[in-house]
């Protein structure tokens, strides 16, 4: 305060509106927000993981020569678009990546939120589902196709 009082008032003040100042002078420096690497696929609902699970993974260590990853056609009742299961870790991920929205909660087979009717085909469970499943139903969150599938969503 003492130092302030020593100064002559008229020398110490300035006005933001002064022409001497450019608007730029008051801008904080900040790095550009990184542009997202991939344009998001049509994604009205959040889901995990954030990368596209149906995109091939570029990891030579995961590839075994001579063993191609099988591809199975997926058909969901009421969805015209041709779909397939190829790279995803679960049927649920694959469907989501191709624009089919299913209800979900736990994503590991104990809540039963993603319960779906299996009309044709066969699936293999990656872990034993704990939620109740009726005959003809599957839990896409913890299974992968063994054959081409025909599905019917609930609701």
């Amino acid at each position, binding site marked *: 305060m003492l130092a302030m009082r020593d100064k002559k008032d008229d020398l110490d003040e300035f006005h933001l509106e002064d022409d001497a100042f450019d608007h730029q002078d008051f801008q*904080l420096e*900040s*790095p550009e*927000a990184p542009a997202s690497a991939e344009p998001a696929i049509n994604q009205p609902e959040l889901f*995990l993981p954030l990368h596209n699970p149906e995109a091939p993974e570029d990891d030579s260590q995961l590839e075994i020569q001579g063993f191609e990853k099988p591809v199975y056609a997926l058909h969901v009742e009421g969805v015209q678009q041709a779909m397939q299961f190829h790279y995803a870790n679960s049927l649920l991920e694959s469907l989501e990546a191709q624009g089919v929205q299913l209800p979900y909660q736990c994503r590991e087979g*104990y809540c*039963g939120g993603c*319960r779906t009717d299996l009309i044709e085909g066969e699936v293999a469970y990656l872990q034993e589902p704990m939620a109740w499943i009726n005959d003809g139903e599957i839990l896409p969150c913890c299974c992968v196709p063994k054959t081409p599938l025909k599905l019917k969503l609930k*609701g």
Partner: protein
Amino acid sequence: MAYQTFNRKTFDTFSQPMFFGENVNVSRYDTQKYKIFEQLIEKQLSFFWRPEEVDLSTDRKDFANLPEHEKHIFLSNLKYQTLLDSIQGRSPNVALLPIVSLPELETWIETWSFSETIHSRSYTHIIRNVISDPSAVFDDIVTNDYIAKRAQSVTKYYDDLIEGVTYYQNLGEGSHEINGQTINISLRDLKRKLYLTVASVNVLEAIRFYVSFACSFAFAERAKMEGNAKIIKLIARDEALHLTGTQHMMQIWAMGKDDPEMGEITKECREQVIDIFREAAEQEKEWADYLFKDGSMIGLNKDILCQYVEYICNQRLTAIGLDTIFPTKQNPLPWINAWLVSDNVQVAPQEAEISSYLVGAIDSELSLEDFSDIEL
């Protein structure tokens, strides 16, 4: 007839129904009649968490800055959840343990109830953190009409069953004169009471909790009360498992193999169960009205919450093999799923912020990028 803490009879555990068979004697888990209950126990144990692991320091500041009507929404939901978990922390034990006949189911009921007591503890943890006089909140739970009304419809089935089972175990089946009143006790009637109790618990865990969950997550979507949302996320994970437990009990009964009488009762009570669902949905909608009486919160209002109740009600009905009762087909709050997911993506825990690894982690780091959209 009277309850035996250790049944001396020799009998085949595998031939016992889930309830109203022989009292359990040896708690053995090497073999099970229904291995699902053993799996549920293991899953529930693997979920173990304590509220104190979650850091709530920013919530205190957030709460102080909330407008009054949002404080009302936040506290009212906490009150209601406290009530629900107070009930669930003891009632399955008191009502179901005296009549259960399978060791794995007995232990599941105990594990289930215990995890509800952790939920109750976490509400105390949250309330103690945000306001200076927790008694004002806790006392209101008993006197608040809006809460009491819903409490009544949750507890009446439990109380009915407990009363009936007490008479049955003391006096057996038949017509009894008690305090000048004639009371008829039949096993069939008790089984019906049991069925309705489990159905109403199913509704409690399937629908009643989710209105509060939605509000907590709506706060967190705005980066408010995030510690609270972390706790609610853990609670939601447990509740989804409990829901699976009651769904299994109801479906096992519906098949009729466990206890043919329960199979018949399932058919007889069909309409009554749908009515329990409908009543719960109506009460939750009224509750939404009460929550938002002084104003909505950003991202959530009465109409959307009511639609969500209908949507979730339909979903739970189909899960136990009943038809939907509401027209709502689409989830009106799709962002909720991202909050309900149990964070089990297969990446190394140190690479990502997985809440199961860093149980109470809140992102409190600040970088220059966070200011990138601020201009002076």
